[in-house]
């Protein structure tokens, strides 16, 4: 009697293998996870071939550099390069490629050129959490603030609050985030000296012991507050405006009016009937904004001198430290893909219409 599950049943007569295939690919979770893995694989492949095939091949360049600088024989230079870039240069390209993939799967991302002896994976592990914390905290705050304000604007349509927030939202949305970061530093830090920005550099104060102490948490927040404000200020406008439009549209739906006909309380209608349905369209935007904010961390962290993976990537790029660059880029993308996957799965949980196989 329940209509939807019938669509997944294979036509009689097909082999059981096809049936298994259908039930696997029909499953929402499996499809999303597969798509995520595919993207990460595509990025890894792209970086590999970029490094190896582009003119001005970094590996060859590095070997030449070693020979010129240290007078090493070619074979030794080649071995060093091979270990640093974590590829085996003797093998044909495709074998190198699979070796590279295998190493990545095991977590071996090579060694840094600039910082001798440092494993790329170690560098990333040291700095990635700070970025994830900063970006994650900002996204969450921005989202919640945005949908709250957006809903408010929808309920109080055409009021002074509505106009004011619309204008502010559009304004903040158009100015690039790094410019806002600069403005914050210039005015709050230098001109009016409201904040000790020099002390706010870095992700934590020197000498502070990491741990779940109040002092540590406060210190971390102290250092992260400016980047967080920048991220929130530049993204909250989108949420506000989209949520306002979405809520306005949802308020006109039949089931909302019917809920009032049934005598439900205003509070219940606002949350479970309007709110939950209005938030749904925002999720696609949420996945886009994860990538945007994470990507923007490159600039924001450089401006605020916040020691996160974004800043490491910039340093690696300027210093032509290819293994670190490769690894950072891969991990950054993987983080975004993973976050998108979580958001997708969450969406599937919230909107039951999506769970059915398409």
């Amino acid at each position: 009697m329940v209509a939807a599950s019938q669509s997944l049943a294979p036509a009689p007569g097909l082999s059981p293998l096809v049936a298994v295939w259908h039930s696997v690919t029909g499953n929402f979770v499996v499809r999303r996870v597969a798509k995520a893995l595919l993207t990460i694989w595509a990025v890894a492949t792209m970086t590999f071939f970029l490094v190896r095939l582009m003119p001005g091949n970094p590996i060859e360049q590095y070997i030449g550099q070693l020979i010129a600088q240290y007078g090493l024989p070619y074979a030794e230079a080649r071995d060093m390069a091979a270990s640093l870039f974590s590829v085996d240069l003797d093998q044909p390209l495709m074998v190198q490629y699979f070796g590279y993939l295998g190493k990545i799967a095991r977590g071996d991302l090579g060694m840094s050129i600039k910082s001798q002896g440092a494993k790329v994976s170690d560098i990333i592990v040291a700095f990635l959490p700070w970025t994830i914390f900063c970006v994650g905290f900002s996204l969450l705050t921005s989202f919640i603030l945005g949908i709250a304000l957006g809903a408010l604007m929808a309920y109080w349509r055409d009021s002074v609050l509505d106009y004011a927030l619309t204008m502010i939202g559009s304004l903040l949305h158009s100015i690039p985030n790094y410019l806002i970061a600069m403005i914050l530093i210039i005015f709050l830090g230098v001109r009016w000296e409201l904040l000790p920005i020099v002390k706010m550099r870095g992700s934590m104060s020197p000498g502070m012991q990491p741990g779940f102490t109040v002092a540590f948490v406060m210190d971390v927040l102290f250092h992260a507050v400016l980047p967080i404000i920048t991220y929130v200020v530049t993204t909250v406008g989108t949420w506000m405006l989209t949520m306002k439009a979405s809520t306005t549209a949802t308020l006109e739906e039949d089931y909302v009016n019917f809920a009032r006909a049934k005598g439900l309380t205003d509070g219940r209608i606002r949350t479970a009937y309007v709110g939950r349905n209005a938030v749904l369209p925002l999720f696609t935007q949420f996945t886009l904004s994860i990538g945007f904010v994470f990507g923007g961390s490159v600039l924001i962290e450089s401006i605020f001198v916040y020691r996160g993976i974004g800043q490491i990537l910039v340093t690696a790029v300027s210093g032509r430290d290819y293994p670190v660059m490769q690894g950072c880029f891969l991990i950054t993308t993987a983080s975004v893909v993973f976050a998108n996957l979580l958001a997708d799965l969450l969406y599937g949980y919230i909107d039951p219409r999506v769970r059915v196989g398409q």
Partner: protein
Amino acid sequence: MSGETTVSTAPASATGGTGVFASPSRFRLPWTTVVDARVDGSKLPKEVVLSVRDLTVAYRVRRGMVQAVRKVSFDLRRGETLALIGESGSGKTTLALALVRLLVRAAKVTDGTVVYQRDGRAVDVLRVGTDALRHYRWNECAMVFQSALNALNPVLRVREQFIDVARAHGMTNRATAEARTLELLKLVQLDAERVAGSYPHELSGGMRQRVLIAMGLLLDPQVIILDEPTTALDILTQRTVIDLLRRLKAERQFALILVSHDLALAAELADQVATVYAGRIVECGSVADIFYRPNHPYTVGLLNAVPTLSGDFRSLDSVRGQPPDLIDLPRGCSFLPRCPFGTSDCEREDPQLVSVVPGGPAIPGAGSHTAACFHAPVVAKSFSRHLQSAEVDEIASPDALADRGAR
């Protein structure tokens, strides 16, 4: 099917029976005015549950004011079924929405009273406060929307939506609410467990309509309003729903207002039929009166527009023309442009509802047959001649219409 089981009545809600009849709260903010909506119930006959007088609804659009409902009056008695029949845009849905005050923001009730009576106590629904209104809705009067996908919240399971209603009206025990939900779903002949755990998009149109009807019965209201209950459904499902409604009516004795354009539906279920045109009731009478002795040209037109399945093939006479512009209504009868009986008298004045039987009551309701036409007797005679002519042997008798629906 075990649809015949007697169902317990709704557990008394915490607000008890005083909900909509509660006296206005003594606490109020200094700048608000409190209106006592209670009405002297002694003037109303005991059986009348809903008494509407001069209800007028208008809403503003850029071009002007749309007169959606114009001075509608009727009496609804306990256990009676009133069908409001009209084409789209006639104002019948607006009228129904006005009875529970669910109009869009732009629309306003500019005149009239809607008096609701129970156990000797009466209130004017149009003037009750928001709290009392919330208790009134669904508890005393349930308006069931059309069963399009959008009537139910797409992200909540059916069970949760029932429990929402129960909780909003004082039924705080979740287990009791769940049990009652299953009971009601069985009553409307659905697979209770399965449907309760489903989402709205997983149900077919007929199933959803039955879920909505079950939801309407949750609190044992005295009045149920059904908006186009069979419109979106196929013939077979329509039959199921109609039979279900007939049975429930007999068992529960609620008063029912059916809003539809489908005459066959009225023939099946209604005791009283009112035809609605351009925001007004143009004729109202018992089912037999309307189908055998129509007195208004519009009613005749509607009857003639139903094609016969039996008898000789004859050309379809639908009502020619378009409904009038509700912003710019003519001074005279609004049906005149489409009326085969119109004369110059009809231009000068808009006919009011008068009793067809000389000396009879002029308010639509049981025991009256009223029509808003200056030429009502002419129309009636012309129709009875039409009935007697050879071509039409079984035209438009209520049973014949009902049979047509079944085949």
